């Protein structure tokens, strides 16, 4: 159910679905209205195609200050990993309309390029501009604050990462999202606080049961010398993995992702442990 809600949220909050060209017309911005209509024509084509890019160039020719055209052009470059072509386009979109594109750019810098410091800088600047809820990342996996926490973890500031997630959960306890408790659990695990790690990983298990999560639960039991639970849980992790319950992103991989080979390696190790 939560996944459906997140999907709907993405649909209704994404630029594509909220784009209403008539709004520009009502505000008397006729050039933007025409550029917007041209952008809608582009949407008949796949983002990577020549036709899509050419129609967006026409939109920019109509109004060179129409930010959405630069944003829309940038997507194929992002997805093809072409950072050199992506960056000037998304920068132009941000320059013209930071309220719309800055948080998105921050997320992309993390998701596609693991540019943690750049992502933190963008997200924090976005917080200063928005002064309210900064919302979710483009694929709906995380609130942008959680994405920021992951970036802090990646640059070694784990305590700060924990604080950001804990603070977020205090205000949004009912919305556990998809992976918040998982990342928090892994953070506590890495800090050696296995009770807190398990408590969060248990919450994750209740809300979104994943092989990755079960792997870290097993690792907590191992550290706590609970051999029976360790052995049992690591096997459960493999079962979940084989059933397809895992962190999954069609473009790239999630932070803290666990691979099958890691689980299998741990299963082999667990055979040497006697209760």
């Amino acid at each position: 159910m939560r996944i459906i809600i997140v999907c709907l949220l993405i649909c209704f909050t994404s630029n594509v679905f909220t784009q209403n060209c008539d709004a520009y017309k009502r505000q008397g911005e006729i050039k933007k209205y025409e550029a917007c209509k041209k952008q809608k024509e582009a949407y008949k084509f796949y983002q990577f195609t020549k036709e899509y890019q050419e129609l967006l160039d026409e939109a920019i020719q109509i109004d060179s200050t129409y930010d959405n055209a630069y944003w829309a052009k940038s997507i194929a470059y992002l997805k093809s990993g072409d950072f050199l072509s992506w960056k000037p386009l998304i920068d132009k979109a941000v320059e013209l309309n930071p309220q719309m594109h800055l948080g998105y750019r921050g997320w992309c810098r993390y998701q596609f390029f693991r540019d943690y410091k750049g992502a933190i800088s963008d997200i924090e600047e976005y917080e200063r501009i928005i002064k309210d809820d900064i919302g979710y990342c483009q694929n709906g996996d995380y609130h942008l604050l959680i994405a920021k926490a992951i970036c802090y973890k990646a640059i070694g500031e784990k305590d700060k990462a924990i604080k950001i997630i804990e603070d977020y959960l205090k205000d949004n306890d009912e919305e556990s999202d998809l992976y918040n408790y998982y990342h928090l659990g892994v953070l506590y695990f890495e800090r050696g606080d296995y009770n807190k790690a398990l408590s969060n990983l248990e919450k994750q298990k209740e809300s979104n049961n994943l092989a990755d999560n079960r792997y870290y639960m097993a690792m907590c039991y191992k550290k706590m010398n609970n051999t029976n639970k360790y052995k049992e849980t690591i096997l459960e992790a493999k079962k979940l993995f084989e059933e397809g319950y895992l962190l999954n992103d069609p473009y790239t991989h999630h932070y803290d992702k666990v691979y099958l080979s890691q689980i299998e390696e741990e299963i082999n190790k667990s055979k040497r442990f006697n209760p």
Partner: protein
Amino acid sequence: MRKVFYFTCFLFLFSCKNKKTEKVIYPRQVGDITYDVKLDNPNFIPCNGDDKILQYFNTGKGVEYRGGKKEIKDLFEKNYTHVKVDESGLIRIRFIVNCKGETGRFRVIQMSDNYEQFTFDDRITNQLLMITQGLDGWKEKENHGTKIDYYQYLTFKIEKGNLIEILP
């Protein structure tokens, strides 16, 4: 003098015309790689022709490699030797995987930490390119029951000559 004046006018008009008609020439799709006789192995052929090559994520399954992405990471960890230079940024190697899982048409782009074009020490790029070209576990992808050719890329995050992360 008059000749110089007319010639200057001609150049001016010509440059105006060029600006007005200036149009970016795009490939069939962003990131397409055409065969280059000087760079590419002539024996590597996309099974369904150049105009039917998809992107790796088009089938919704992401990167598919024998043993998973961890296997790629492990291979680079094992085979990449640190180069002692103060160079950081990203290197992307894009290529085609054909319907048989064979690879070809490798292309490299590089950037510094601030997204500007950059050229890393050859010892870094050559190593990465050689290891990438040696990867032979790419899975054959299918779309609606047909085996496809697809574009794949690997992005390497380099910090002071160390390989610290591999994407996507």
